[in-house]
């Protein structure tokens, strides 16, 4: 339960920063310059409660948790660099970042979409179980770690560039695509220990990848795989104006786990 004082404090904060947002062409414009993340996110939650459908946030300098705790399927455009945990526990909004993102984008995301016109940091898509994340360029270490799927929910992470080590570690479901578009001719993906501990889900890689975790194997893609890849690449091209035919002209491979029970034989019962 919220105490009277808490309610008062939140109302005060909302009032204090109301001047930061104004409505233009059905979109709320928010100037985030100098705002602490708590102030910015209180403002966003306020706009969300008032059923704003579109928010443009400018001058974002590292504010964390943007998109967390929002209830509606609103569209948020971010200009600048959002901080860590962008869209953490997010359940519906559609975020587009016109710039780079930092670590832990889409942490435990349940639903919604995040599109990054740039690169993203480590553990992008950590434990996401639904929704989609598109990264135009590269991602850092442990991208797609512990991604999941469940009933009608399936997580999707598409990386236009390449990834660092431990890509798709512990993956328990979902689809992770790495396109390698920024690799130079003859250059391979450098990620090592790819799919370590993976026990469900699929990683599709365009280009060559050599250093795998011991729990996974590389296979050729079949028709069903290609259909999935084409759908996601099409979306990627729509977001970032990339050339679909050019991307699809190169070979994809898939990385899948040997077993859904990688540690079933470790214990003495």
């Amino acid at each position, binding site marked *: 339960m919220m*105490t009277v*004082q808490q309610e008062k404090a939140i109302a005060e904060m909302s009032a204090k920063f109301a001047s930061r947002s104004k409505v233009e062409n059905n979109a709320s414009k928010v100037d985030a310059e100098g705002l602490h993340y708590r102030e910015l996110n209180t403002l966003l939650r306020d706009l969300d409660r008032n059923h704003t459908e579109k928010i443009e946030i400018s001058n974002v300098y590292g504010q*964390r948790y943007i998109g967390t705790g929002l209830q509606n399927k609103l569209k948020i455009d971010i200009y600048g660099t959002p901080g860590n945990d962008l869209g953490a526990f997010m*359940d519906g909004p559609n975020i587009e970042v016109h710039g780079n993102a930092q670590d*832990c984008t889409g942490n435990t995301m349940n639903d919604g979409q995040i599109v990054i016109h740039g690169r993203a940091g480590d553990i992008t898509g950590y434990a996401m179980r639904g929704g989609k994340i598109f990264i135009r360029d590269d991602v850092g270490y442990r991208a797609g770690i512990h991604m999941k799927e469940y009933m009608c929910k399936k997580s999707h992470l598409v990386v236009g560039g390449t990834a660092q080590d431990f890509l798709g570690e512990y993956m328990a479901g979902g689809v992770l695509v790495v396109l390698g578009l920024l690799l130079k001719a003859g250059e391979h993906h450098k990620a090592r220990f790819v799919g370590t501990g993976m026990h469900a889900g699929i990683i599709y890689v365009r280009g060559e990848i050599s250093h795998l975790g011991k729990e996974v194997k590389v296979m050729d893609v079949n028709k069903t795989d290609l259909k999935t890849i084409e759908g996601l690449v099409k979306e990627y091209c729509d977001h970032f104006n990339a050339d679909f035919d050019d991307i699809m002209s190169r070979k994809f491979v898939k990385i899948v786990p040997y077993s859904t029970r990688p540690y079933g034989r470790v*214990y*003495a019962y």
Partner: protein
Amino acid sequence: MKSYLPPEYLVERSEERCIRCKVCVNQCTYETHSYDAEDDVIRSKDENCINCQRCVTFCPTHAITIKKNPSSYRDNANMTPEVIKDIKKQAETGGVLLTGMGCDKPQLTYWDRLLVNASQVTNPSIDPLREPMEIRTYLGAKPDALEMELENGEIQLKTQLAPQLTLETPIMFSAMSYGAVSLNVHEALARAATRAGTYFNTGEGGLDPRLYKYGDHAIVQVASGRFGVHAKYLDTGAAVEIKIGQGAKPGIGGHLPGEKVTDDIARTRMIPIGTDALSPAPQHDIYSIEDLRQLIYALKEATDYRKPISVKIAAVHNSAAIASGIVRAGADIIAIDGIRGATGAAPKVIRDNVGIPIELAIASVDQRLREEGIRNKASIVAAGGFRSSGDIVKAIALGADAVYIATAALVAIGCTVCQKCYTGKCPWGIATSDPWISKRINPDIASERLINLLRGWSMEIKDMMGGMGINAIESLRGNRLHLRGVGLTDTELKVLGIKEAGD
């Protein structure tokens, strides 16, 4: 391969008393008993018996006795029968030895070497049956100071208070995940916590939507696997707990085998049916105190700063420094789980060798936070093998605000601590996801048994407080003058911050 392991227990059945009702046959989930229709006799396979006492309890004529196998290896203080059997088991399987419940070795229990004070002559004791005795406990960050102002003749609090949990007794039910225990157990804990005015902890396997109505008395856990963690789950709980570690297996992750991930459990954990639920050892978004702060505030943002955030760690060698970091990272509650903390499954070598006793951890954490002037910024919840209200009074006197109990709660509803939780075949219907065996726990009866235990222990706590001349639990918290040690070294006394008895 022929097993060299002898049966641990022998089943003795009095033929005179046995009426061939086959209750034992039906109750044993390890297929120890079978009925031979040809000879009209019930036979037992001793090697299957785990000595859970289920058949003994339910035999209507008390015909069964389970005895420890008297046949044993030659006496040896080092190569004990347990050691020899463990080695043989590993030689036969090549695996990591699993076990359940908490560390069963005696040398780590300090409670038995701590004694509580009582008033004699110089200050009056209080009779809790006739005088008010306050054991209500608030968990959460407390302000450094309170600012008040007089408004129309009434005192108004100006200081903004952090969100608090209100406990009518300083005892909560510790984290037990749905999957490790059955839904009926979760329901029993939820209902008992609600009726007794305290809290149960969901553990890391999510909360079945059928139990959301008990959310006001739930602490919802977020662990490395993030199972069942979503906006509504966080919103449902009264508090959110980040699980870094647990006393039974500090430093390692968890692993719910696929065969336990049934339909309902899959839905609650939000993973496909039959897949292994792997909880990685670390949370991969937390490699530092700064990262922990990031997750604490992610959860505060997700819950609009309305709920206290707890961080649970296993008691380890530098718990005090870690706890200081946790408080500075913004946690409202620190839960510390000692080496005797139980589990549904853990490698035995880790359960029995890793971590430190909770007594030492409470004392050192409380002391450190006081020295740094930040003790008020977070409450301390102690966990790990509380057996009686006596242990709880001692824990609070050492500096804990409240305790978590799990083993004792399960014992209350039937558990006999046979330590075979990891098999999923719990004959008492507790540590299982089998729908047939789960029916052995009736939430109506089990919640009543839990409420009775809480009531009994709460009255005993009040009795002991009254004896000390204390009428509010706040006056007992960290009041180490009311504790004395027996048979402890100077260093142990120093860490515990207490004097030797008689001193």
